[in-house]
């Protein structure tokens, strides 16, 4: 029997994978993917809670989030393409013209 806690545990693992990916991966496309994994980890949590309560609003929330994630991916990829045209590189360590 898969209980609520299993879902929450899985989504926590996914969120952790996404977070690590943002910091450790050396390819900007993979970094974007890691952010998507984080968003979907949150989605899984919401759906799991909604199902546990026997309410549909959890699933409705996720519809909104999926739409937002799609828009975010569109903007993110557009920025990456603009960046690649200027730099010919997908390594975030190459983006150092601005320094703190």
């Amino acid at each position: 029997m898969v209980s609520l806690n299993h879902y929450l545990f899985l989504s926590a693992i996914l969120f952790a994978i996404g977070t690590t990916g943002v910091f450790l991966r050396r390819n900007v496309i993979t970094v974007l993917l890691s952010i998507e994994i984080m968003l979907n980890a949150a989605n899984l949590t919401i759906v799991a809670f909604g199902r546990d309560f026997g309410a549909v609003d959890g699933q409705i929330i996720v519809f909104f989030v999926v739409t937002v994630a799609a828009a975010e991916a569109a903007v993110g990829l557009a920025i990456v393409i603009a960046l690649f045209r200027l730099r010919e590189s997908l390594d975030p360590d190459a983006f150092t013209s601005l320094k703190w």
Partner: protein
Amino acid sequence: MSSSSIVAIVPILCVMAAGIAAMLAEAFREPGERIPISGLGLVGLAGAGISTVLLWGRHATGFGVVAADTFGLFVVMILVVIGAMTMLLSPRMVERDQLPGGEYYALTLFALAGMMLMAMATDLLVIFLALEVMSLAVYVLTAIRRGTEASVEGAFKYFILGGFSSAFFLYGLAFVYGIAHTTKLDGVGSALAGEAASHPTLALVAVGLLLVGFGFKVSAVPFHMWTPDAYEGAPAIVAGFMSTGVKAAAFAAFVRVMVTAFEPLRAAWLPVIWVMAAITMILGTVVGVAQTNLKRMLAYSSIAHAGYILIGLAASNDVGRGAILFYLLVYGVTNLGAFAVIGLLATPGRANDDLASMAGLSNRHPALAAVFAVLLLSLGGIPPTAGFVGKWYIFNAAVRSGDYGLAIIGVLTSVVSIFFYLRVIVMMYMAEPGDAPSSPEPSRAAVLTLAATLIVTFYLGILPAPMLELAARSVGSLF
């Protein structure tokens, strides 16, 4: 759903309609034809301003997730002012930098609509959606000079960290939904008050995740890393727009969430806000001293200002919340004005935004130098400017709630920050002119806007009482 639901969101609809009109105007434009698209934006903003005044004090609610209460409407009014200033200052700069006009104005207006929704939303999901509407438009605005490396790189860093923080916000929302079975702020508040003891850990995790999300948006330390890069990369006027508008909207939602939904957990989040405010003020000021690029300097100054506003939240009495609203107004007008001056000084192909190119500005552009000097003094908090009153009121709130530590750190960092504001003024008035070229004369709209900014800065500095009282009364609607 009644007609009053629509009424509550009329300000947002006006701005949204103007944004769509701006897009269509660009799409149907004959090649070579010039359409004053910023005028469309001003019409929409005027509609938003008028409807905000008409909605004042009526406590309209929309669809159960938007509240046109005085707190939200006050922030909407600040956003209308910021939007109008941006529309008036932009045309010449858009032309000079050859930015795509239709996209620029449409995105600015869509961002404003998202900010207004964020200021009025009373449901965590709607706050998330509004935050994304605002952020996605601002990411693109940052990258709008897409042939410039700094612009695209700043936008990329902003986007990655912004998306990262959105994910934290959403994960926090998920846990809030799990605890309270709802995402409506008042429902969350009563659920937490009732059964906070049954899921204390989960509730704390949720608050922590949401704090990370908001911390990024208001650029509080340690979530500030994107700020200087994004502001330096973006065109000056966009940097001014996002340093004021995004901050006002994000702080409005931040304060609303903290004092309505998470009031029962105050004992847990107050120390976190306290530490955040302290390190934000200190780091923003100390690193700001070391900057030689004006946009980066103003970016660190805006980080420090986020720290001052956090004091108002940490004080969490009505004085503190009123002080936040007043400060957001003052900071919005002066900071946008300061960025606009930097934007006006740029010449084609050259940004002129480093400290050295300020040398001898008082000879080349006496009026711009004077305006810049006054705005910087206001940011530094020198009387009789509005910045002084804003800071005084914030520190007053801290002292009244017995929080002397934050007040002392605030005063000390203010004193240090005056050093880097004064350094610019000394460069402008006392240094020998360098090789910086003269900039073209600003347009009449820009001159009038800067004059109005100056008047507001002095008016709110000398006769702040009516506005302070309005701000103090507006926060009463939060409960």
